[in-house]
């Protein structure tokens, strides 16, 4: 779909060879998973829980500004860790191999308004299978944005920077809505579908519990600090939402990331699937702390190639994956967080307007556009 196919220079054999090389990287990690990895995730979970408890404890006195600041900062970090490095990755089954029923994708529930099982379906099955395929991957613009030049422009797209900002602030609700496929299911005919109603009810229950905890019970426990604690939990949720939205935008939105049309994935081989994941994702460079806080989605490319490998291993995998990009002369899209966030937002703004008419076209480029 993108005008110039950056993988055109690869032969079918090369793509299958690439697939085998990626399989080998995956097998190596699986064979060496062990005690250290298990200790890692238990440590992160333990630190996260202690941080959350301490922060909420401090917020009981949030009427004092220093307590508010420290408690809110701590709770924001705890919520980010819970969703990103722990929740997202546990729900991917990255830790299922430990056979610990307390850290398992089938038993985990997270601090998020979308119930784990619904999110697992829309994220693990749909987004990870149909990565960046327009019309199949709801993560791509969340069904409300224009994400590629080849999508037809409509005046409604003028508002997409605003939609995107609102979605960022209330990101967890946006995710719950699109896990429910609200856009599709709110049509009169579908609204009464018992399966949809059951799922909507489950989301309602989850929202009630989350809201009750963050906006009623904890403020009430804070007594005279009721209002300030309410403001603190609201702020922590807002910070978490903005952060996770930014990280996720950086995964598939920056310039240089490819999108694909439905037809292109028919009869896709394993090698071609890998290649689509490579071209459809982008990384964020940064320190160890940055990787931790993004839930290692800073290694989005590696995560998309191997969604169920333990997140603490993506850094070592990235070195090998990057070498493959070089070997096969493919562009490894990566950059610092500010750079990638800017790039993604730039695209949102650019595509909110109709395409600019290209001024000069070389005959070659014209041919490619026709072919695409």
């Amino acid at each position, binding site marked *: 779909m993108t005008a110039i196919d950056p993988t055109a220079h690869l032969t079918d054999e090369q793509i299958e060879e690439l697939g085998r090389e990626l399989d080998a990287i995956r097998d190596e990690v699986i064979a060496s998973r062990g005690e250290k990895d298990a200790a890692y995730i238990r440590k992160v979970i333990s630190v996260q829980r202690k941080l959350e408890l301490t922060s909420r404890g401090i917020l009981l006195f949030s009427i004092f500004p220093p307590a508010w600041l420290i408690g809110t900062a701590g709770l924001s970090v705890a919520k980010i860790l819970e969703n990103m490095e722990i929740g997202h990755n546990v729900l991917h089954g990255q830790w299922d191999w430990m056979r610990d029923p307390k850290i398992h994708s089938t038993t985990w529930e997270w601090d998020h308004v979308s119930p784990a099982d619904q999110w697992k379906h829309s994220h693990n099955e749909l987004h990870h299978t149909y990565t960046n395929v327009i019309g199949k991957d709801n993560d791509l613009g969340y069904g409300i944005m224009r994400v590629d030049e080849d999508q037809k422009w409509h005046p409604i797209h003028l508002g997409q920077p605003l939609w995107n900002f609102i979605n960022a602030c209330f990101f967890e609700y946006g995710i719950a809505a699109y896990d429910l496929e609200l856009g599709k299911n709110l049509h009169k005919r579908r609204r009464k579908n018992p399966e949809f109603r059951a799922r909507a009810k489950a989301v309602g229950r989850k929202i009630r519990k989350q809201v009750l905890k963050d906006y009623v019970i904890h403020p009430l*426990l804070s007594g005279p600090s009721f209002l300030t604690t309410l403001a603190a939990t609201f702020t922590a949720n807002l910070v978490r939402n903005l952060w996770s939205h930014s990280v996720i935008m950086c995964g598939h939105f920056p310039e240089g990331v490819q999108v694909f049309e439905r037809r292109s994935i028919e009869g896709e081989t394993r090698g071609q699937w890998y290649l689509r994941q490579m071209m459809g994702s982008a990384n964020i460079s940064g320190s160890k702390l940055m990787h931790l806080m993004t839930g290692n989605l800073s290694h989005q490319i590696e995560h998309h190639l191997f969604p169920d490998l333990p997140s603490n291993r993506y850094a070592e995998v990235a070195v090998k994956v990057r070498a493959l990009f070089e070997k096969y002369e493919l562009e490894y899209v990566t950059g610092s967080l500010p750079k990638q966030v800017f790039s993604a937002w730039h695209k949102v703004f650019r595509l909110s307007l109709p395409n600019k008419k290209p001024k000069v076209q070389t005959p070659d480029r014209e041919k490619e556009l026709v072919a695409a």
Partner: protein
Amino acid sequence: MTSAALRSRAWKLLELVTTPLLPSDYLDLVSPLRAGADLRGRIEAVHPETPDAATIVIRPGRGWRGHRAGQYIRIGIDVDGVRLWRAYSVTSPANRADGRITITVKAIPDGKVSNHLVRDAKPGTVIQLDQACGDFVLPETKPAKVLYLTAGSGITPAMGMLRDAELDDVVMVHSAPRKEDVIFRNDLHDLVADKKLRLVELHTDTDGMLDVARLHELVPDWAERETWACGPAGLLDAAEEHWTAHGLADSLHTERFRPSVVVAGDGGEVTFSTTGTTVEADGATPLLDVGEEAGVLMPSGCRMGICFGCVTPLKAGAVRDLRTGEITEAEPGVLIQTCVSAAAGPCDLER
């Protein structure tokens, strides 16, 4: 309102505070052995017994309800980061003053858990526990004359009984390959020195295997004795045959450490419908192994069909019991032991 109802209401309130986690998820961080927690234990010491056997001293959590001598416990321990469950006989007496329990483990070739426990287990490690179970125990009224017929690590439940109850007339016939392989050898000889035990110690590398038919040469009054036998399948099969032939099957109690597989199933496609996993399985592999291999969270325990720690609803299809060849077909409420059942055609398990 009763105090129990009050407590449960307070707990419900606490759950609203901790949602989506449970209060116990936080309490487990600081107090994994507390009352009300999932039953766990802490390894306090590891004492070598022989070159390949060791006794593990465990401090059980507050929820431990005690055991009867001869019973076994299921333990879940993380080996290379993977939670594995096995069953071991308790070798400490039921009334041990410090409340600790011990299991004694012999490392078997390729045994992941046994080798880990004997060679790598560290004091301080928290393990998962289950309440003691098994009916390989002494009766309430102590029998006048007792025989323990054991071999190898089969001595472990018998040692639990020996340490637990003072009996007037006890004989033990124990086989091990060599002298240095006899687990608890010093303890046994101490009991002999105190005249609390008559011991027949056979070293099969030099003496040859025990011929149960000639037991009367070693223990002339064997037929008058209530007998507890534990060891390899060959020994137990021979004992059962011998006691039955003499019309004494009622006075023989056996405990098996390994299932004796007699019949393979036909194999088939196995669906774990809760997790939406489907795999092809042959007729000889226990469904427990099939599930674990496929990444399904399977409960497990003794892996030999005795502890029922692995039972799982069979929703559709049929399975074959690897010990008896018996076919079980799906019906509402049918539970199967996945560790001794293989697919007999396509089947669907609720996992």
